[in-house]
Structures are given as C-alpha cells and as structure tokens.
C-alpha cells in the first residue's frame, strides 16, 4: 500500500536544465506537480476575480455576491485592524489569503496540496515577515526598535520582556509557516491513513472478521475528516491573513499603539 506521505512527493513533469544564479545558487527550473497545482490555483483566482469584477453591477448576481463576500471579509479585516491605512495593505493581505485558500481548497479536490509543502508555507511566511520588516524600518527608522521595548512593564523587567518580545518577533515566520504546514499536512496524512484502511478493508487484506467494521468506521472517519479539512482549509487561510494584519499593524501604527 502507498505510504500516506506519498501524496507530498514532488514529481518532475517537465525537466529543464538547472541554471545558476548569483546569490541564490543553482536553481532547478523543472515544472513539477507543485508548480502545476500553484498554476491552477493562480489561474482559478484570476478567472474568479475577473468574472466577479468585469461585469460587476450595483445589484450583484450570485457569483458577484460570493466575490464581494471574500472581498469584504478581507476588507473589513484590514480596515478594522490597520485603521485608515488598511486600504493600502488590502491587496497584499487579499493576495495572501486567496492564494493560501486556493491552494488549501485545491488540496481537497484530490490533487496536490501546495500548502502542505514547507517550501511554500515558508515562502508565504517570509513574504509577510519581510514586508513587516521593510515597512517597520521604512516608516519608523530606529523607532522600529520601540516595538520590542515594553513601555508598560516595570523598568526592571523591561530588558527581559524586551528580549522575549525580540525572540518572539523573529519566531513569527517560523510559527506562521509551521502552523499552516502542520495543519495541512496533518489533515491530509490523517485522511490518507483512514482512506488506506478503507481500501485495505475493501480488498479484504484485513480479514473477513475485522475487515468490514474497520472499513465502515474508517469510511465514517474519512467523511468526517473531509468536512473538517474543508473547515481547516478556510480557517488556516483566514488565520494567516489575520496574523498578517496583526503583524502589519504592529509596524504601521507603531506610534499610535504603543
């Protein structure tokens, strides 16, 4: 039987010779199943947004209502968290949200789950973290360091709390990437394991006595987990977007908040 981890393997579909770039080093340009999944998600998002906005009417149709729902979800999020600066950062948060949501949902359609690749989640996390750093320094200069100086704490405690704040700040990309990666990978492994039991029971390799009950219970688990995974797919994209907003708010409104 196939390993539950086999679904995460990268297969080269079209191979190109490697190229060597300065700074980065050797880059493998092969088109893999991961690339295909990302491309499908990208095309789907662009097609969806184009369909929603190209013939947008004041009185929306069904598709436009869905699109406006997603749009409004992120718009409210950036607005309420970043205040009047929210609109400026909306496209960034919306891009992250739609890409992650698209990849998560595509993973539910029996294909490759791009967000269960650590490389992908690390990239998302570093994009967010990098933007936070760039904005933090560009907007506040050295004032950026105020983020780590807990002015509310007693004076003796401040260096220690500040150190903890500093560490937790630099752990953000790690937690961001591992949360998404772990959720997506864990869910799909669990699904595959139970599906494997169903398959084993169906071909009779578990025996005639314990096979059927195990198969039935596993099938119920697969159905329940599938529903749960749809929820997780949305929730993890949402959580990533919210955390992006929170981290952005730290640096965008540094002077107001502290």
């Amino acid at each position, binding site marked *: 039987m196939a390993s539950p981890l086999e679904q995460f393997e990268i297969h080269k579909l079209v191979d190109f010779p490697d190229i060597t770039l300065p700074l980065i080093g050797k880059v493998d340009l092969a088109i893999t199943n*991961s690339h295909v999944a990302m491309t499908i998600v990208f095309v789907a998002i662009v097609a969806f947004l184009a369909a929603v906005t190209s013939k*947008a009417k004041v009185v929306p149709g069904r598709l436009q209502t869905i699109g406006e729902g997603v749009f409004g979800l992120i718009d409210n999020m950036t607005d309420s968290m970043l205040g009047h600066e929210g609109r400026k950062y909306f496209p960034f948060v919306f891009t992250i949200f739609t890409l992650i949501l698209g990849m998560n949902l595509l993973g539910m359609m029996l294909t490759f789950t791009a967000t269960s690749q650590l490389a992908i989640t690390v990239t998302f996390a570093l994009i967010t973290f990098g933007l936070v750093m760039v904005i933090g320094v560009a907007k506040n200069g050295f004032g950026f360091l105020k983020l780590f100086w807990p002015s509310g704490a007693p004076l003796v405690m401040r260096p220690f709390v500040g150190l903890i704040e500093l560490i937790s700040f630099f752990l953000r990309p790690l937690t961001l990437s591992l949360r998404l990666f772990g959720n997506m990978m864990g869910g799909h492994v669990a699904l595959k394991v139970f599906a494997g039991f169903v398959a084993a029971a169906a071909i009779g390799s578990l025996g005639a006595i314990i096979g059927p009950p195990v198969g039935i219970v596993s099938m119920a688990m697969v159905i329940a987990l599938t529903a749960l995974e749809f929820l997780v797919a949305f929730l993890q994209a949402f959580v990533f977007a919210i955390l992006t907003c929170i981290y952005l708010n730290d640096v965008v409104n540094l002077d107001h908040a502290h």
Partner: protein
Amino acid sequence: MADPHGAAAPHGADATHATTAAEHGSGGGGVPQFQFEHWGGQIAYLLVLFVILYVLISRVFAPRMRKVLDERAGTIAGALDAAKRVQAEAEDQARAAAAEVAGARGQAQQLAAEARAKASAEAAQRTAAADAEAAAKVAEAEARISATRETAMGNVGAIAEDTAKAIVEKLTGKTASAVELKAAGGNA
C-alpha cells in the same frame, strides 16, 4: 522519485541529491517536504505568481470592486436621502393639511355660532314683534271694552229714568216730570 535531478545534470551536488533520493524516495521513511532540492523552484515560482497576483489585485480587481461597492454605497445613501426628503415633505404636507382642517373646523364653528346667534336674534325679534302686536290687540280690545262700558254706563241714567217713569205711571197713573225723575235718579 527515481531520479530527482534528471539525467542532464552532471554537477557535483548531484551526489547528495542521489543519496537524498535513496533515503527518502523509496516510499515510507522520510518526509518529502524536506527534500530541499525541490525548494528553489517552488519558492521562485510562488514568488513570481505572488507578485503577478498582487499587481493584478492592486491595479485591477480591487479598484474595480471598490468602485462597485462605492457606487452601491452612493446609490443606497442617495436613495435614503431621497426617502428622507420625501418623508419630510409628506410630513410637511400632513402638517399643512392638519392645519387646514383645524382652520376649516374653526371657521365652520364660527359660522355655525354666527348662524345660531342670527337665528336666535331673529327669533327673539319675531317673538318681540308678535308680543307687541298681541299687546296692541289686547290694548285695542281693552279700549273697545272700556268704551262700550262707558257708553253702557252713560245709558244707565236714561234707562233708570225711563224705568222710574214707567214704574211711577204704573203706580200713580201720573206722569212724573223730568225734574222729579232727575232728582230721583240723582238720589238713587
């Protein structure tokens, strides 16, 4: 996963990739996500897609969506304004109508009061006229009665004289003189 790097990749690093493949690629065991030779391509591709999508959203989709939303908000606000204006207008009209009705009622009451007063005055006048007429008739009648009584009383002396004369003639056979009769009448 038999050959992670293709046949046309004769670099030195291939050896490590080959061992990675030997360790992880044989099904079970390792986690495919930690085969780092696939990271570069995925990260680069995702960055490209991310930038393109970001540009598309910030330049095309978000402005379009916002335009529609603003338009809708404008339409709704306009409709609400119009509704409020119409409502205020209707309230004004209702107030004007109520005032008109109140005025009309007051006028009607005044008219009615006037009519009542006029009617009662006329009635009083008519009553007074009738009273006066009746009083005049009564007075005339009384005057006539008293005149009749006067005449009657005036005739009483003559009648008494005639009666006395007749009685004297019957009793004495003599005709009493007018002087005697007068004296008798005066004494009687």
